[in-house]
């Protein structure tokens, strides 16, 4: 069957099998490999993309279902050569290690900030709770999203602090 959709603002049309998952459509057909695949069961969230502005797990959406809709992936976060504040926040606050869950986490974070520009830590944790990160322990992801929120609000003037203490002996 033929499917057409808008991906990161660009109209694409491809001939596909009806059973093709959106994640494989993006990765294998469009070569947008920033969206990852991790579990098949909607548990891990490495495959999160936007469908009409809503984060969805693209491993459980058929490509055909996205026909006529707008899809946005991690590749669409950077605008005019400028990283999105969420992307910068992840870099600044060590919100990633292996980078595999990162695109999905950032897509969810971007959606959260679009509707709630000043989320609390709890709200951030709830927003990303459908996604798994094995490396970071989440605290730096929460900081990253907070960094982005502050950046967008223009309030990131003073240095935030972390609970790291030490002594040398």
């Amino acid at each position, binding site marked *: 069957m033929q499917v057409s959709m808008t991906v990161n603002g660009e109209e694409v049309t491809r001939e596909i099998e009806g059973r093709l998952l959106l994640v494989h459509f993006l990765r294998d057909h469009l070569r947008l490999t920033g969206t990852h695949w991790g579990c098949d069961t909607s548990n891990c969230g490495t495959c999160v993309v936007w469908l009409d502005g809503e984060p969805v797990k693209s491993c459980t959406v058929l490509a055909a279902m996205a026909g006529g809709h707008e899809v946005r992936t991690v590749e669409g976060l950077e605008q005019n050569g400028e990283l999105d504040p969420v*992307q910068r926040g992840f870099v600044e606050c060590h919100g990633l*290690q292996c980078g595999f869950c990162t695109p999905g986490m950032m897509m969810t974070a971007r959606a959260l900030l679009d509707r709630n520009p000043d989320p609390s830590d709890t709200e951030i944790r709830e927003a990303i709770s*459908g996604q798994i990160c094995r490396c970071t322990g989440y605290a730096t992801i929460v900081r990253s999203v907070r960094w982005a929120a502050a950046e967008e609000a223009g309030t*990131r003037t003073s240095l935030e602090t972390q609970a*790291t203490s*030490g*002594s040398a002996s």
Partner: protein
Amino acid sequence: MTAVSENGHRTAFVDNDKKPCGHGRMLRKEDPRFVRGKGRYVDDLDLPGMLHLAILRSPFAHARVLSVDTTLAEAHPKVRLVVTGAMLAEKGLAWMPTLSNDVQAVLATDKVRFQGQEVAFVVAEDRYAARDALELIDVEYEPLDPVIDVRTALSPDAPVIRDDLEGKADNHCFDWETGDEAETEAVFARADVVVTEDIVYPRVHPAPMETCGAVADFDQVDGRLTLWSTTQAPHAHRTLYAIVAGLPEHKIRVISPDIGGGFGNKVPIYPGYVCAIVGSLLTGKPVKWMEDRAENLISTGFARDYVMRGEIAATRDGRILAVRTQVLADHGAFNGTAAPVKYPAGFFGVFTGSYDIEAAHCKMTAVYTNKAPGGVAYACSFRITEAVYLIERIVDCLAYELAMDPVELRMKNFIRPEQFPFRTKTGWVYDSGNYAPTMELAKELAGYDALRAEQAEKRARGELMGIGVSFFTEAVGAGPRKDMDILGLGMADGCELRVHPTGKAVVRLSVQSQGQGHETTFAQIVAEELGIPPQDIDVVHGDTDQTPFGLGTYGSRSTPVSGAAAALVARKVRDKARLIASGMLEVSVADLEWEKGSFHVAGDPEASVTIQAIAMRAHGAGDLPEGVEGGLEAQICYNPENLTYPHGAYICVVDIDPGTAKVTVRRFVAVDDCGTRINPMIIEGQVHGGLTDGVGMALMEMISFDEDGNCLSGSLMDYLIPTSLEVPDWETGFTVTPSPHHPIGAKGVGESATVGSPPAIVNAVVDALKPYGIRHADMPLTPSRVWEAMQGRPTPPI
């Protein structure tokens, strides 16, 4: 060693402008590609003409394979190749060696020995067609009784799993012993107090977000194999492929590109990698194999699975005298443990922990069962997770019996700073440590005394709050080649450094990153030694054609071994730079002083040359001092003198809902001492990740089986991993006790938190349950298991 008063110092974490030329907080060089979705993982590879491989796996835990009919699969229009065990046997490829000198079936020929074992594979034009064709393969099995319960594996009437091994009449895998049995018995006999506890460390799984996979590309003209694979040890894998597949080693190139987390899961060679190679050999096309999540969970390297009896002997006033343990180890169907050959139980021998005791003894029996192979994975530092869990749990049991505070009991028994280097009763030589300040800092950060007061109040009201403590000593950085090797390959690491004429540099590592940030940390190590900014240093890793030989990234060995290699190779370059500088400044070498980034004449700081100017001179047209070759580069193979021994003190606070028995980790304070700290940001990240693993293992994660050997944890719906809602905002601190034998004093930290956190969490839960008279309950402490404990019926999970 005097304590510098930085206690309570709070560090800024958003210091973007700080660009250290050496050690210090620095943003990661690898991140710009990752946040753009431009990481390069194995599954991102798309080569012209590439085919896709899928593996048919056994539905049975134990069964004879009577026949495999591939006729229908071969007729599928998109299928190019179907391969069975019998076909591999004809080529002598049906079996492969494991990292523990056992053998493992690539594809089953005679029997299947665990659910999920590889039986046949299909190569097709796309990944969906390959999966479709698996359904068309008809396998006739004769089910056999499986061996699932590790405790009955050695019963005389247990079915023999490994009848492929000549003369094998039971399921015994190996015995191992350490310490002095008679001496330990004598100490136990005269002790005031002896506490015994049965402690299970259940089977768990690293479950990295990226599953395992490979792309094999065999060039039939020049006989060259390129293998992109999810491996933590590309060089060791290349050598093993040469041995297994009979391909000449110089014709094999193993590339480990960006890896989506490893945690030990990507150390072994899996049948799937070999299948991909065979697929490419036979089709002449590149072949991709990516396992799915179920395959990852049911068939690849598990971790732990130790059934332990721990015993501790002490005086009534809390002086620990001796520790002993008996361990029954479940190694699954093939002994796929990845550990140095002389250490079949990994580094479990450090089970004496951080304490100065008189005697210790361990007796271990490992058995085969009808479960997936593996055994050393999940950031375990070669079984130190099990060792630390055992000692830290049994010390808490002792505290319970003596009605002593667990911190006080530990402090009373610590190895004292002046005793280092300290030889334990099981023969390990701890390089350095200063335990009390680390424990004190953790207490201070946690507000320990106030927590105990709060707990007393809550107990009086019937609320369940627990405070758990653990103190660990790790042994990482394998290892001295005189007694550490993997299948005969010594555990030393090569490193090469080349400074280009303009003063930029490239350092080539033998270790490979799975997210640890090597491109940043290793640039910083070289920068610290040479004064070349880290931004000017390219780190090359994960490609056997481009990097020197070394054993790979696991067991927290990158910084202790390759980090030392990087520092020393930089010093070699600096030594050569000194010779060139002496010519440039026309003074003798002895008159030169090094200040990061330049040499100057002693007493005349104005007369100086930078490392960049020296690099240009090294490649330039002018004369060099006599006997000095052109160029500015060096290489090294670093053989560590000893392991490094990081330590840490962890305090966990939990609340338990008395109505639902749900455990909430309210706070977690982790104070780590990994010696010299290269990039504190990266260290903190490593610790956070490990603590999260600890919450998973202590409260949620377990690979379980039913009595028929069906794996009940084959998806992330069944195998529960902590999300952002199950973990607190981590509170971390540090002390610094440098390693005396490591060139920069660094110790390694990747696995510390995974090792140290489970006992702190379990100790906290058990502490919360003290009003119920509970001294021990096994992981995972799910609500149902905690509920059982509250009813006085804590049952072991296996």
